[in-house]
């Protein structure tokens, strides 16, 4: 199966889906699912394939290349599988929505463009696919109207800034070396000056930092996640944002090269240290801002930013454990954040679009599948042992502590404890507590929405207990990047400085769980009671009001609110306003009075003469 064919299927599948939607919606659903599952199948057959093909030479004579290696495969399989799950989920979620043809078209187009990004063997293909991804994402973020419009503009403006930076970087590579083939560029770059490498790293870091929402550049993300349709939020947070991580891997460890990247600068002023610190800031601040959110999706969005920080810290720290942890965390993050968004989507579906954390509650009795999805999702997000999040976070922590970076480790650990608070709030306010009367009878989430949730929940546990499965692929990635290989077993990581064996932790928890479950069963049977048979100091339980949700961490809010503002967002907004007003005043030079226009003509002549007399350029 050649890579061109894969991409042709991906892109033409998107168009095909759109066209079949014109005929009938069932056909379209079928085609969309078929295409997305087909891509999963094809990509999984490409496991362990190493190829490189030139597929097009018509663009200024540049050889556009597709290549497949372990890094590409790892991201490709993640992209196609998560998209496939989200597509399946969308079947019922988007059933009665307007423009659903358009929605599927865009989903598959984004899927195809992401696939192209990871398969790109040269920077031009990379950039083109990156841009297609950017604008199609914009078109889908705006899909929900109203608040989504502002989010879309924010996204596309930042995205454009990022891609312009990347364009400059790519073209400067092209002009210096005359090639954009990633492998060749890496070779050419080895002897070039440190300053040039640093320039490339910084300029690409801006692009990927914007996409991966590193702290001062994160401002597009919360709105965009919150306002998109939930299955797309899932793709957006799971894979699309993480194209930034892919980019970082590409620029740091493939293009510039591991050895060089890790030795740029000295001490605290080296490139990767600064990136690590940005990552640490990205972990801590968003995690705490997330605690203040009242919108379920916005809360998850802020965590999306925060978790991105772990990946950056892991990758930028530049040890084999750290890099493996960072890459693994990318996959894990995708798993649980997709799961969480899908769970929230299920709630939205069942409660007609409610996702306000203050007006829901007690849904765990009504929506058990979504609830277990949410529970496992937040467990993964926290990194509770036996979920996959634990393994990757463990790898990152360990590398930070043993790498003598206790402050970074502190930031990372603190982020986790902040995460506990906010995700618990998420779970509590949505699923636990008192079930409001109005939600006693809710729409059942259909099977197509439950299947992805179940699959993802299973994946979280599977990768949590047997982390060796994905770590094997990741090991080959980091070896290709020039790191030392890790000693991977199916159940974890072996090393002299500390072994992780998930299987025996699992066994211990399972045994004790079984023992106490047995004791619990043997002990006197308990009476099930209604939620209204509840302690209320002898008074009757008030209906719909007996749930503590608003200002859940009130004491902390009182203390923290003055400090926990998204100052960067405010800063950017102020800049945008300033630019707006400058633009508004600039156009005032077109006064509408002809005399002044003629005056401009005279002044132009005068200025030409002035320039000539002063500098005599002619």
């Amino acid at each position, binding site marked *: 199966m050649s890579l061109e064919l894969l991409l042709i299927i991906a892109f033409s599948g998107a168009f095909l889906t759109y066209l079949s939607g014109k005929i009938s919606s069932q056909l379209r659903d079928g085609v969309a699912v078929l295409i997305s599952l087909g891509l999963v199948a094809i990509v999984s057959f490409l496991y362990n394939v190493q190829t490189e093909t030139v597929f097009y030479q018509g663009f200024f004579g540049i050889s556009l290349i597709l290549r497949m290696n372990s890094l590409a495969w790892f991201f490709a399989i993640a992209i196609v599988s998560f998209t496939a799950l989200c597509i399946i989920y969308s079947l019922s979620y988007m059933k009665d929505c307007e423009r659903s043809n358009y929605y599927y078209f865009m989903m598959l187009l984004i899927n195809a463009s992401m696939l192209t990004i990871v398969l790109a063997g040269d920077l031009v293909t990379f950039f083109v696919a990156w841009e297609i991804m950017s604008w199609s994402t914009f078109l889908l973020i705006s899909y929900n109207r109203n608040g989504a419009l502002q989010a879309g503009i924010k996204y596309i403006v930042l995205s454009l800034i990022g891609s312009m930076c990347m364009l400059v970087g790519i073209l400067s590579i092209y002009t210096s070396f005359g090639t954009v083939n990633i492998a060749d560029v890496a070779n050419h770059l080895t002897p070039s000056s440190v300053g040039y490498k640093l320039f490339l790293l910084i300029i690409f870091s801006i692009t990927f930092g914007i996409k991966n929402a590193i702290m001062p550049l994160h401002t597009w993300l919360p709105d965009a996640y919150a306002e998109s349709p939930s299955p797309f939020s899932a793709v957006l947070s799971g894979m699309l944002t993480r194209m930034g991580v892919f980019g970082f891997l590409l620029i740091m460890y493939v293009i510039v090269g591991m050895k060089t990247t890790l030795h740029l600068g000295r001490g605290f002023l080296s490139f990767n240290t600064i990136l690590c610190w940005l990552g640490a800031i990205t972990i801590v601040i968003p995690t705490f801002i997330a605690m203040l959110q009242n919108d379920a999706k916005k809360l998850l969005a802020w965590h999306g930013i925060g978790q991105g920080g772990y990946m950056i810290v892991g990758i930028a720290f530049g040890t084999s454990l750290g890099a493996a942890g960072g890459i693994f965390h990318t996959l894990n993050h995708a798993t649980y954040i997709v799961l969480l968004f899908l769970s929230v989507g299920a709630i939205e579906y069942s409660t007609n679009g409610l996702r306000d954390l203050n007006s829901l509650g007690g849904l765990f009795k009504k929506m058990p599948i979504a609830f277990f999805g949410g529970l496992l999702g937040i467990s993964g997000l926290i990194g509770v042992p036996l979920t996959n999040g634990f393994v990757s976070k463990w790898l990152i922590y360990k590398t930070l502590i043993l790498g003598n970076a206790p402050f970074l480790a502190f930031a990372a650990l603190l982020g986790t404890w902040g995460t506990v608070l906010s995700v618990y709030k998420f779970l509590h306010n949505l699923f636990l507590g008192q079930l409001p009367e109005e939600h006693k009878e809710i729409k059942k989430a259909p099977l197509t929405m439950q299947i992805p949730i179940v699959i993802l929940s299973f994946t979280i546990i599977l990768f949590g207990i047997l982390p060796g499965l994905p770590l094997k692929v990741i090991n080959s990635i980091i070896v290709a990047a020039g790191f030392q290989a890790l000693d991977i077993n199916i159940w974890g990581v072996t090393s002299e400085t500390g072994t992780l064996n998930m299987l025996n932790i699992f066994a211990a928890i399972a045994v004790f769980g079984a023992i106490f479950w047995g004791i619990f069963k043997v002990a006197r049977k308990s*009476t099930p009671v*209604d939620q*209204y*048979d509840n*302690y209320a*100091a*002898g*008074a*009757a339980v008030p209906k719909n009001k007996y749930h503590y949700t608003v200002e859940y961490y009130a004491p902390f809010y009182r203390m923290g609110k003055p400090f926990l503002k998204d100052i960067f967002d405010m800063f950017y907004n102020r800049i945008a306003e300033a630019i707006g007003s400058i633009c508004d005043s600039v156009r005032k030079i077109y006064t509408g009075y002809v005399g002044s226009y003629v005056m401009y003509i005279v002044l132009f002549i005068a200025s030409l003469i002035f320039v000539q007399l002063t500098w005599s350029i002619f």
Partner: protein
Amino acid sequence: MDRNQIGKWLKNPGKMANKYSFHVVYFCTGCGIIEVPPSITTRWDAERFGIIPVATPRQANLFLITGYVSTKTLAAIIRTYEQMPEPKYTVAFGSCPINGGMYYDSYNTITSLDKYIPVDGYIAGCMPRPEAIFIGVTHLWKLIDMDKADGYKRYREDYVHYRANQEQILGELDWPPLFSKENL
């Protein structure tokens, strides 16, 4: 005190533990509550008998009704009693819960509490001193030993009547019956 007799423990640990670990819900309806603080603090130290106050009926096994019971508080008393897990014991403290005491002719005082919930023991007096509480508790121990502190069983058996009595004085109750037909 037979707290240290291992034989008895092995024979019926549940009963023994229930005797020596009274977690008490004090229902502070009236002036009787004033006698409780001295009894649980340094002067009389109820904790040496294993008696400690708890905040919720879910964790309690002893219900101490300290003072007169008005119609309005009766609902709360019934609810609290029903929320306690079995086995559970009720002790009425002072004259008022027994027969209305000095409020015997008030229009809204319940004169006989045991029409509405089963009462395992009464501590008479207006007010009874803290020592009386301890005497009451030792009596309760004896009753438990003899399986005579069976108020919760009676409540279950005669629930229909208790419920009828409750409804008679309180009107339509806004909570469902504790025991449905299947539970009985």
